[in-house]
């Protein structure tokens, strides 16, 4: 199959916050994904696909259904564990992929199921991997995640929480690694997302269409140019694409060296306490995101500004403690706590 042309990430007009949230997640997949709220036609899925296209290839075990990282023995699947014992892990590289989970997906396709062909032809019980297997080490993209069936959401939550997909279904008992960057989109008008699922998203952003006429014109111009001649349009952005890819690669390498001061950590902990968020995900994610922002900007020391940027992405969707409470983030309060 010929590789389909993908609209360049750097050619997307505006939507800076969404772009930042996505970039931070690919630099640091441990952030916990991003929930994008907003209307249709705001370049959500374009941005996700475009970002994957731009990323450098990663190491994978050749032929592994779960694309295990040959250098991460903690997260090998069963087959790779065995191969590693024999010392024969074939190494190759592949780009990060965007794996789409359609809202209508049935559970057997999501978690995997009994391989019918093997069973009928050979009488063997084998596991046929599903979407969660494909999603391991990739981006799992769920459009209109708020419309997903509850039982599929349960499965997603389970896998997202553990990084493992445990299957005890239809005659097969199996588990495999399922660590993915979860990107969900939703239109809030069409119903709520379950609070549990909301809490699992590391970051959230609200996107709106551009209102400035000049920018709107630019959006259309670029789109038309792309549709007219995709190849030369893509070529025009090659330079910028390379620069961004390079920036992301540098940030990925820098990230383990990024530090933060005790003072900054105190402020983040206080922030979580005073805002009354549930549990520890909020403060842990704020500091992780802030560190990633620092890495993205090529710094080794996390700054207060980084924390502020992170707080805007991490806190808003965690402010609601009960149903029906208006979940708004009091930004003045955040500033006063951080600046104290």
């Amino acid at each position, binding site marked *: 199959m010929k590789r389909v042309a993908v609209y360049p990430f750097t050619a997307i007009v505006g939507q800076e916050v969404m772009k930042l949230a996505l970039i931070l997640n690919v630099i640091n997949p441990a952030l916990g994904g991003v929930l994008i709220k907003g209307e249709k036609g705001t370049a959500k899925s374009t941005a996700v696909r475009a970002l994957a296209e731009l990323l450098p290839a990663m190491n994978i075990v050749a032929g592994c259904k779960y694309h295990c990282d040959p250098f991460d023995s903690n997260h090998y699947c069963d087959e790779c564990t065995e191969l590693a014992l024999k010392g024969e892990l074939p190494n190759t590289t592949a780009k990060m992929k965007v794996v789409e989970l359609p809202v209508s997906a049935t559970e057997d396709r999501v978690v995997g199921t009994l391989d019918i062909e093997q069973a009928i032809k050979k009488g063997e019980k084998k596991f046929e991997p599903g979407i969660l297997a494909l999603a391991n080490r990739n981006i799992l993209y769920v459009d209109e995640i708020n419309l997903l069936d509850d039982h599929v959401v349960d499965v997603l939550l389970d896998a997202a929480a553990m990084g493992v997909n445990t299957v005890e279904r239809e*005659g097969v008992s199996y588990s495999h690694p399922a660590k993915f960057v979860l990107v969900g989109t939703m239109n809030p008008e069409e119903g709520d997302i379950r609070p549990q699922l909301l809490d699992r998203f590391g970051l959230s952003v609200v996107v709106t269409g551009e209102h400035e006429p000049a920018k709107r014109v630019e959006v259309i111009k670029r789109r038309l140019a792309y549709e007219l001649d995709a190849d030369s349009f893509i070529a025009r952005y090659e330079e910028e694409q390379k620069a961004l890819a390079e920036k992301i690669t540098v940030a990925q390498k820098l990230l383990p060296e990024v530090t933060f001061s005790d003072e900054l950590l105190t402020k983040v902990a206080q922030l979580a306490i005073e805002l009354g968020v549930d549990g520890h995900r909020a403060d842990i994610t704020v500091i992780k995101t802030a560190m990633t922002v620092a890495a993205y900007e090529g710094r080794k020391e996390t700054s207060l500004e980084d924390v502020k940027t992170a707080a805007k992405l991490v806190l808003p969707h965690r402010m609601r403690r009960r149903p029906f409470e208006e979940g708004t983030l009091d930004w003045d309060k955040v500033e006063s706590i951080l600046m104290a």
Partner: protein
Amino acid sequence: MRNYAYYPFTAIVGQEQVKQALCIAMVNPKVGGLLIGGRPGTGKSVIVRSIRELLNPRKLLNLPLNITEDMLFGSIDMEKALRFGVKQFSQGLLGKANGQILYIDDINLLRPELLSSIVNIQAEGINRVERESVSYEEQTVFSLIGTMNADNGTLSNQLLDRFGMYVESENIQDVEQRKEIIRRTLEFQINPARLIDSYSQETTELKQKLTKAVEILPRMQLSEAMLILAAQMCAQAFCAGHRAELFLLETAKAIAAIAGRCFVLPKDLEAAAVYVLPHRMRKPPEEAQEETPDEKQNNEENNPQEQDNSEDVDGNSDDEIQENAAPPLDMPNNTSSEDSSSEGESKDNDTNEFPSNNKAPEELIAAINNSFKIPNLVLDLGKSSQIKRGSGKRSITRTDLKQGRYVRAEQPQGKVEDLAFDATIRAAAPFQSLRPSNGCALTLYNEDLRQKVREKRIGNTFLFAVDASGSMGARERMGAVKGAIHCMLQEAYQKRDRVGMLAFRRDKAEMLLPITRSVDLAQRCLSQMPTGGKTPLAEGLALAYSTLDRLVRADQNLEPILILVTDGRANSKLNDNENPVEAAIKMAQYIRKAKITALVLDTEKGYVKLGLAKTIAREMGANYYHIDKLSQENILRIVRNIGD
């Protein structure tokens, strides 16, 4: 997934109670299971998974929520049957759990039928299987650990009672502790091996302590005095049944064993009581009545196990429900002096019936009376071909659409449309040696075919039709009405129901909110709903009828429920020569004919009661409740409208 690195138990900051409870469960499987509640993100699952290292060589088996019955209970070994023609039992998770620990994350989301089988088997120690041509019985002794976040609804009282211990993970508020949690979590993410190493000494020590405790346990001395003390403690807590004493003693034994003693002291029982008693404590009626409403509310907030008794129709907690549903108008924002004059006030209300005398302000927006409590709503839709009661969500719809979770397989009646491959293969497997081969490992006959039984947990659809006329406008009345609706909405939120709202006042009925899954929007709609003007009841009913009718036409599986809130005093005409009350009754009869299940919440108040809402309810074939008498009901039962 053998190499998977788990966060070390000993590196967990705080959560001492949860940690101790887990140690107890690891040492003594007879404590009857451990349920861990708590806010999301407080580390419930992390702690449970961290016990793996301590358990070794025992295992922590994860029971996924989507487990199918064959994999849970066990079934015929498909491979053996196909390849060697032998009928052999293949163990399910419950069998494999023998001697191990079984762990269920978000246990409150597991299908209640499954959970109740699991706790029964756990209590009995025997798994009996009669499935797919195998008959099997096996011994299985395991500890059960579940975690839950009460936001998604809690377990029913009967199920709660089966758990020996309950503990809640704390929401740590100390800055230094929180900082330490962040530091260690980051360290673990960057280099798991290093963090595990730095706690390996502590892990080894704890492991030795637990191993020793397991050795001591069979020799544990339990004096008569301790038995008496345990009985006294349980009696004081008004525990139902005798499970409490047994669990209390077993827990105390484990605590003593962990402390390295081979006899139980009173302090062990006291420590055990913290885990064993809270979720099974019942209040004696006299005491409960002395409580102020505020205390009641606090109690509710603190004890999730008391909040949701939705499955509990005849359980012991009925007293509580009644208490919580104390007379609605006692608790609103107004003071007690106003309260005592409520009868005089209701005379004013009566004058509102007559437009010429209408002294009520034209437009009022009443605040939601949040302290209003209603009894639990129970949908008693009975058994029909399509819908049956059960599950945490209100109804389970069995559809012909290939949607929903595949829960089990059955022999098809007629044509197979949704083939259950695994069950079909299992059904055919034992007969393969007798059948002519077709080149494959499997020769299928028609009688082998099994089809999937799918369950789709859907919330129900509720349409609220609210009388927003002037006669409802008296501030605290509308407050109470909104309070009652608020309660229902809150339940709807938990159960993922869909809701819609329409109001009728002045000369028209208005759809305020089309049917949506966003209970939030309904809530906003409710708080902003103004009252004032006449009562076009027939218009309201007509709009409700057309809305619901359209809904059912679009999706035959839906069984929407109409909740009509009115005092029944229709006084606005559709056309000149029609009596507004008669018009309303006529509409009500249409609704009955359409078999729309409905509930009428009568809000009529005052000396002279016309009882029109009751008449409307009867004509509609609806369930009828009066808002003032809600407190006397144990449950709000909604029975299906069977039409004529």
